[in-house]
């Protein structure tokens, strides 16, 4: 797997008497897209801010590419990009100027080619010479993303990158995130759109009240926690279920026209399908549904599972 790109060890953050992060350990692997999920106030932004150097941890250490983010900040920050959750802009400058200034802070002179690539990916080419003040909310957020990309960081933190971004551009951004991953960029993103995490992430971490509830491959989370549902459309409506099917937990819906049955994660529908056949029921159509990441997330947070 190689050394982790970001390594968080025992990180705590207190604001006065309030504990925002309660001793976190987390490794981010090279080249992955990691989705950091959790309800409002869970500590996602706090954690990202500590890695990026916006906040100092109260205890613990963070390493980026093997170097400490406090003692070796010049090195680690050169390799990090951050799209902050809060939109900010300097009303003195245009889109192009904002990008050039940010690049300058990183010691990078933006080539025309690179500038055009960033503007194009974020659909801001038409706004190149427009003052940041005159951008729409979603465009301002895209400019923030652009500013985080100017120095071609190896690790990119996206704190709710698509909040307020329209559907079409969101998908365009997702494609661009994958392009970046294809070039070897490691990406950590937070989002409240669970379909975004489901679409993009290789691994997910669920943070709640300053603690990590789970860090797992996305596919494994779904395999392990997502309940499946089978729905069979019957040719003739049934008034009552045959006993074998009832004992498997099946139920009738839609006036007896649909038979539905839940399976726990990892459980097979084999016995149910066999019982269906044995009962001699004519089935018109079968569909199975799996819980979405969003439902798994809600279930996990309710504490119904581990």
């Amino acid at each position, binding site marked *: 797997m190689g050394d982790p790109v970001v390594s968080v060890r025992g990180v705590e953050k207190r*604001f006065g008497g309030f504990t925002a992060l309660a001793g976190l350990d987390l490794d981010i692997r090279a080249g992955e897209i990691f989705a950091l999920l959790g309800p409002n106030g869970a500590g996602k932004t706090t954690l990202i801010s500590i890695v990026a150097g916006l906040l100092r941890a109260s205890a613990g250490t963070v390493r980026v590419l093997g170097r400490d983010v406090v003692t070796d*900040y*010049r090195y680690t*920050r050169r390799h990090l990009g951050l799209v902050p959750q809060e939109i*900010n802009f300097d009303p003195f400058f245009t889109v192009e100027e904002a990008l050039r*200034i940010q690049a*300058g802070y*990183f010691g990078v*002179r933006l080539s025309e080619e690179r500038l055009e690539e960033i503007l194009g990916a974020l659909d801001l080419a038409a706004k190149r010479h427009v003052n940041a003040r005159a951008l729409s909310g979603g465009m301002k957020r895209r400019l923030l993303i652009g500013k985080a990309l100017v120095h071609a960081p190896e690790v990119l933190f996206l704190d709710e990158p698509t909040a307020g971004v329209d559907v079409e551009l969101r998908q365009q951004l997702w494609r661009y995130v994958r392009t970046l991953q294809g070039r070897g960029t490691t990406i950590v993103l937070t989002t409240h759109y669970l379909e975004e995490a489901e679409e993009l992430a290789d691994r997910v971490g669920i943070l709640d009240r300053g603690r990590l509830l789970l860090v797992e491959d996305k596919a494994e989370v779904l395999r392990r926690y997502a309940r499946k549902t089978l729905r069979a459309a019957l040719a003739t409506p049934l008034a009552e279920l045959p006993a074998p099917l009832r004992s498997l937990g099946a139920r009738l819906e839609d006036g007896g026209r649909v038979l539905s049955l839940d399976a726990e994660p990892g459980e097979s529908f084999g016995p149910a399908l066999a019982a269906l056949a044995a009962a001699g029921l004519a089935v018109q159509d079968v569909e199975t549904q799996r819980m979405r990441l969003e439902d798994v997330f809600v279930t996990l947070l309710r504490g119904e599972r581990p």
Partner: protein
Amino acid sequence: MIGLGLRTLLAKEVRRFLRVPGQTVLSPIITTTLYFVVFGYSLGSRLREVEGVPYARFIVPGLVTLGVVSNAFLNTASSMFVMKLQGTITDLLVSPLSYGEVLAGFVGAAVIRGLTVGLLMWAVAGVFTGFGVAHPLAAIGLLLLIAVGFSALGFITAVWATSFEQINFFPTFIITPLTFLGGVFYSARMLSPGLRRFTLLNPLFYLVDGVRHAVLGLSDAPPAAAVAIAAGLCAAALGVSYAMLRTGYKLRG
């Protein structure tokens, strides 16, 4: 060798005040010209000479000092504070600029503004009173130290402040009164012994007096005192600013 990062920050900060030249450069010049015209020229023509110098000429160094001090202070204070309010400070905090570079960028731009305003004020006054300077290098050196010291003070104030009120407190309630009471308009020798003792406690008095010595060649106090106070202020204010950046005081939660 100045790196691209520092050059970018410096250029950005200079452009920031040049984009609103009316506010940042012109208005202090107009204000001081008014002081000069009212106190120096119209009243001054009825006043006697002060220590062998026409009154209009006597007040120029003090006014220039006040211009340098308040512009240096205000530039760092307002720029830093606005960045905190707008959240654009994030752009700097995530960048690999060293603490020293961040400080140099802010202070450098403020010094450029302070000295530019001071120079323009001196030029305006020169039209009325002549351009002669007794010790040009000493004048530039001392004003440079003063500009650095007060811009670092502005930086500290902005990092610490949570409201505009607090930003304005320092120039309105401390710098301007102390400068005015520090002998911009009179020589300490003209004062009663009681007032004189009070004036000698005012650090701004020594700065005004030092600049007057460099420009006009006359002084109430030893010029070395001005250099010592200005250098002490620089060292202390830069030291505190640097420590604030290094520890992340207020800037990094």
